Structures are given as structure tokens and as C-alpha cells.
């Protein structure tokens, strides 16, 4: 059902909106992306100051207790502005994992720094051939004294070049595809024997191939239970990414509709062509449906409902396909302009297409939804 926001939630939303309107227009974003670092440290500090980095954390962990609904509110606005800073990676994914399975000491130390905006994080879980399976892990962790030593290769780790810490999944027992035997480790990104090969991503971020050759790691959560922790983490990440996608979809629809009302061809506005009208109606319907699913998923995450994992897969898939449809059509209806790097439309397209890869593509989640149904 439609979420009627509390006063606090409305306040959060309007303050994010104000901040981004003032400091994160498309030109400002372009400069951030083109900078050496590719990251707005100043903006990140503003996010911290405004309390965004604290919003989803529980009050016990020093946060504002806003949970998945505050993540939804923030990410929808971030999606509208194509924010590149690693809120999902640092706050939702790493912060969420630490809050979920970390020791008191870890929470105390790491979450405090995240909330303060002084440390950035990334999650290194994908490997060559793992595709979207959390349990396919060949990287190993060997006990060594009171710590562990990690060896292996992680691929396409988004935000790794920006990070101070990585959470790395590694195998403490079992074989490559076993669900059991995977553990999570906190690794200092500047640790000895850890190498990054950095590259730019299609959506204006930085990522890296990560090579670990005997890197010291600190266990996060219980040994061998990493996959279950990652699954819960993925649900939250999907909630955030879906909200971001819905924000982008809304902007694409608004831009396309406005363009269709001003742009003329053959003496009339292109919005007067019935074929394009119906296309925009389908884009409108897609937005309505994704908005509903996004809210539904966020409420389920908030209440930690039993079927939330299945619902996350369903939403990721349906919103993914809808986003792809809207992005395709937004570029098509903008014609040549939609193909240029100058206009924001292509950048929404690219962000949506990257969201559709992160944490599993729509086709993967369709089958996962079906499997969880069969299992239920």
C-alpha cells in the first residue's frame, strides 16, 4: 500500500532534496566524475553532516533508527540525481553487515567512523566465474595466530579504489560452490600484499580487480556462515538499488515527457504522435508499478518479514526489466540527443544498466524467485 510518511521521514526527504538541488546538479556531478579521485569528498562530508550516513542505523549502533525506509527515501533522491558516492557500498552494504553480524567492538569502531563520514567501504564478493552466486568462492582464508590470512582474486569490486576497508568473502572450509564454509573478513585496503587494478565503470564510478596474496583479515560474524549474512545484506542492497532505479525512472519519464512536448518534427511536437504517446503511457505504467513494488519491498525489509528474500528477488527482477524498458525508450524518444554524453538521459540509462548487474541481473532473480517459491 501507499506509504504515508511520518513527519521525520518527510523532513529527511525534503532535506536530501534541498541538498542535492543546491549541490548536486548535473554539472556538479560531471565535475565530480571527471575529477582525479572521481568522488565528491566534500559532498560526502555534507551527507554525514545532514545525518544521511546515520539514518538507517539503529539508535543502539549510534544511528537515527530510520531503517530501510530511510534508505529508500535517500536512495530514490540519489537515483534522481545520479549520485556516485558509495552510500550503498559503505552505509547499506558494509554498515549493514557490520551491524548485523559484527562484534560490539567492531560496531563501535567501524560504524562510528562510517556515520562520521571518515571511512569508506566496499564489498568484495564476486570472482571470476562466480557470476551472481554468493556461495561460489575460491578465495581462501587460513587461520594464522589470532587472525586470518587471505589469498585469492576478487573481480569488479565497485568503490574499492575509494575505500579504506574491504569486506571480503573467503572460504574457511568446503569446496568452491559449497554454501557452508564461507566467512567474511574486514581487510585494510592499504594492507600489504593487497593489490588493486582500478578501472572506470560505465556509470561514472570506480571499481577494481582485487588481488590478495596473503593479506591479513579480521573475521566479521561467525566462521563459515558468510553466505547467510551476505543474503540478508543483498536484500538490503536490493532495497536500496530498487529505490535508486525508481528515482532514475521517474526522472527519465519526466524528461521524456517534457521533451516530447517541446521537440518538433514535421511541424508538430513529437508528443502528438500516437505511437510515442502509447510508448510514454507504458513508461508511466512501468513507473507506477515499480514505485509500488519499491514501497512494498521497503516495508517488508522494515518489518523483516519471512518472505523478504523472495520479494527482494521479485522486485529486483521486475524493476530491472521495467528500468531497462524505460531507459531504452527514453533514449529512443530523445533521438540523437539521447545518445550524447552531454545530456543526462544517457547517464540514467547507464546507471540503470549497471544496477541491473549489481547483486544479480533480472534474469537471475526471476529464477531465484521461482526457486524460493518451490522451496516454500
Amino acid at each position, binding site marked *: 500500500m*501507499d506509504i*504515508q510518511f511520518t513527519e521525520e521521514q518527510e523532513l529527511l526527504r525534503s532535506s536530501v532534496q534541498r541538498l542535492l538541488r543546491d549541490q548536486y546538479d548535473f554539472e556538479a556531478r560531471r565535475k565530480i566524475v571527471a575529477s582525479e579521485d572521481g568522488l565528491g569528498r566534500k559532498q560526502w562530508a555534507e551527507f554525514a553532516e545532514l545525518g544521511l550516513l546515520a539514518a538507517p542505523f539503529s539508535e543502539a549502533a549510534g544511528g537515527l533508527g530510520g531503517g530501510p525506509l530511510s534508505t529508500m527515501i535517500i536512495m530514490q533522491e540519489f537515483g534522481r540525481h545520479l549520485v556516485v558516492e558509495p552510500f550503498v557500498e559503505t552505509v547499506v552494504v558494509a554498515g549493514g553487515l557490520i551491524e548485523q553480524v559484527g562484534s560490539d567492538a567492531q560496531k563501535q569502531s567501524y560504524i562510528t567512523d562510517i556515520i562520521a563520514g571518515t571511512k569508506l567501504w566496499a564489498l568484495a564478493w564476486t570472482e571470476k566465474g562466480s557470476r551472481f552466486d554468493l556461495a561460489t568462492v575460491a578465495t581462501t582464508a587460513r587461520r594464522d595466530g589470532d587472525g586470518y590470512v587471505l589469498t585469492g582474486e576478487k573481480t569488479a569490486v565497485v568503490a574499492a579504489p575509494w575505500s579504506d576497508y574491504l569486506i571480503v568473502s573467503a572460504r574457511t572450509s568446503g569446496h568452491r560452490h559449497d554454501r557452508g564454509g564461507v566467512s567474511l573478513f574486514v581487510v585494510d585496503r592499504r594492507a600489504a600484499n593487497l593489490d588493486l587494478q582500478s578501472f572506470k565503470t560505465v556509470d561514472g564510478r570506480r571499481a577494481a580487480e582485487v588481488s590478495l596474496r596473503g593479506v591479513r583479515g579480521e573475521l566479521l560474524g561467525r566462521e563459515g556462515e558468510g553466505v547467510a549474512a551476505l543474503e540478508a545484506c543483498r536484500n538490503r542492497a536490493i532495497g536500496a538499488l530498487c529505490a535508486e532505479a525508481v528515482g532514475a525512472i521517474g526522472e527519465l519519464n519526466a524528461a521524456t515527457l517534457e521533451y516530447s512536448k517541446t521537440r518538433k518534427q514535421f511541424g508538430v511536437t513529437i*508528443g502528438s504522435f500516437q505511437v510515442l504517446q*502509447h510508448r510514454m*503511457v507504458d513508461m508511466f505504467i512501468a513507473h507506477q*508499478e515499480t514505485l509500488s513494488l519499491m514501497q512494498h519491498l521497503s516495508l517488508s525489509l522494515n518489518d523483516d518479514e519471512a518472505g523478504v528474500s523472495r520479494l527482494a528477488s521479485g522486485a529486483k527482477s521486475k524493476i530491472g526489466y521495467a528500468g531497462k524498458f524505460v531507459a531504452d525508450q527514453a533514449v529512443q524518444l530523445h533521438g540523437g540527443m539521447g545518445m550524447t554524453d552531454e545530456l543526462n538521459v544517457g547517464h540514467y540509462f547507464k546507471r540503470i544498466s549497471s544496477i541491473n548487474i549489481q547483486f544479480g541481473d533480472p534474469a537471475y532473480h526471476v529464477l531465484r524467485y521461482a526457486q524460493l517459491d518451490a522451496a516454500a
Partner: protein
Amino acid sequence: MELALSPDDAAFRDEVRAFIKDNYPAEMRVANPETDLSKEQMLLWHRILHNKGWIAPLWPKEYGGPGWSITRRFIFEQETTRAGTMPPLAFSVTMVGPVIYTFGNDAQKNKFLPRILSGEDWWCQGYSEPGSGSDLATVRTKAVRDGDHYIVNGHKTWTTLAQHADWIFCLVRTDPTAKPQSGISFLLIDMKSPGVTVRPIITIDGSHEVNDVFLENVRVPADNLIGEENKGWTYAKFLLGNERTSMAGIGRSTRYLNRLKKIVKAEIPEDDPAHLEFIRDITRVELDVLALEATELRVVAQMARGIDPGPAASLFKIRGTEIFQNITELTHRAIGNYGLAIREHPVSANRFMPGPDYGHTASEKYLNSRKLSIYGGSNEIQRNIIAKAVLGL
């Protein structure tokens, strides 16, 4: 997916659920209730609901409605469709009833409303004419005033279940010189009047659901005119806008999806590559249903807060019918070679139908559901409506 309900509403939901379970007539549980029930069978549930006071959820209390909140109406609708009950005839309760209590005079209210509620009168809708399609303003049926009567001549078509009807509510042209939408009146006609002839139209699934209705010099008392002469278009538009969320058909789609899953499980071994493909295709439709249901719940919640849902009905009609057509296609595909067979009408127990029971109506439903994207304002028209009303194009 469930609404988060207050304890009172939850109790109401349980009451509805139990009532259906205990009272829905077993003899109405046939494969294709839309085509296979007799008139008397169709009315069984209507009468039970009437006795309970639940027959007209939308009506104000003074006319015999139960006085439910929007949430309760939605609960009732959700429970009845999920349980697979055959809804009472929409033309009577949902369509002509509200027109009569909104625009009719007291004599009309007193005469017609109780008989609608009790099921005594069966109504059909005289809107479409040959050549009118989704453009209802092209009414050519003429009504000429003659003393205290109208003389009506014309030809209505696609008239659903007219073969059972006692009354028909008609759009008729009373001013041939006015612009298309201005010269139309809303007239109630007794089907037993001399000059009314009903001719069946058989559709591609072999069923008899719709009819031609010919009106030849039919004398209709002027008392049967609703509201003012030449204002009929206003009442017709009111009526068309009166439906909201029910068009999404979530309950129906969910039931047919469950049946489809059973068919796939029974017909297609798991090691057949077709199996995985069905799982994929079915799951994508399931997610379509999920998204539409979430949207329906969102709109209901907004309506309960007094927010106008705009042309949400068009969205629900488009997606609801696309989804259901897709489900019937998948079912027809799943049943394999038996999809070649079709039941013969009128249905007779003597006729042989091959294959498993659950497949007997696969072809028929597949064919019949082609109409969904055409009838009630084609999906193209619905998209035009959204383009204009929501997008301002």
C-alpha cells in the same frame, strides 16, 4: 499480498472468508461459470448475498448498501475474487443501479432498486451498436417522442447475457440535429416489450455470451427516461468512471496462475527443457501480478486518504487484461496436444472431451480471453485516455 489491517477490519476479512466458505453454492463451481451456468444457477449466490445484505457494496446505505469503508469494500472484493466466486451481474448492481439512485427520480428508485437488489430483474447494457466500437458517441438508435411514450428503433450489439435479461438500459438518440454527444438520452426498456428481438452472437470459443438486440418500433413509457432528455452522455460517462480497481483482476489471475502451475507440474517432466522455460515465463507473469497488486493496494490506500486516483482504472484494465491473456496463452501451451480440442456448446455431459480434466477449458479460455483487450474500451483507447488525462498529451 495483504493490506495491513486494523483488528476490526481483520475480523471483517475473516467473517467474509468464512461466509463464502460456508455459503457459496457448490453447483456454481463449474469449469467455466461465465458460460456454463444457467440463469437460475447464476442467481443463487446473488440471492444469498442479498439476504446477507452484502449484494451492493458500493451503494449508499439508504438504498440498501452495507455502508462499508473503501478498505472494507476492497477486502470484500479481494476475498470474493480470491475464493473464485462468480460475481453478481455487474450490469444490474454495479452499473445501472448507481445511475438510477444518482440521476433517477423517486418513482424510478422505488420501482427498480429493490428488484435489482433481490435479483428479480436482470439487466443488460444497450450501448454498443454495429460500427460504434469504442466510440460510443456514435449512437444511431433513435427514440422519437410520441405523447407519453418514446418510439425506439435501432440495433444494439455485443449485448452481454441479453438472452437472460428483463431490462435493458440504452443510449438512444433523441436529438438527431445536435452534436454527437449532446443528443443522447438514457432510457430503460423492458425486454418483454413488443418489437424487442434478441439474436445470439456465437464467439470464436463457441460460446453464447453476447447478442444482437433489435429494437423495432418499441414503445417505451417516457417515465423510463433517466434524468433529462439529451443528457444521457453525462450519465453514461458517470457509469464508465464508476469502476475502479476491480479491473486489475488480481484474484482471477492468481487462481489461474495456480492452476497453470499444477498443469505444468503434471504435464511436463522436470528434465524436459520446456519445464524451465515455463517456470521462467510463469514467474515473470507472477511478478507482473505482484506489481499490479502492489499498485492496487497503493491506490486503495490513497483513495482511503481521499486522494483521487485519476484514471487508475485504465492502468488496471490494460495490465489486468494483458496479464490474464498471457496466463491463458501459457495454459494453452502447457496442455500440449490437447490444446487442439474444444468443448462443444451447449455443454452436454454426453460429449467426449479428451485429456485431463484440468485441460478441458484451456482452448476455450484462451480464445475467449482475446476479447479482454477489445471490450470495455479497447486497450488502445485506454492508453489514449492515460496519454490525455495523465500525461497531458
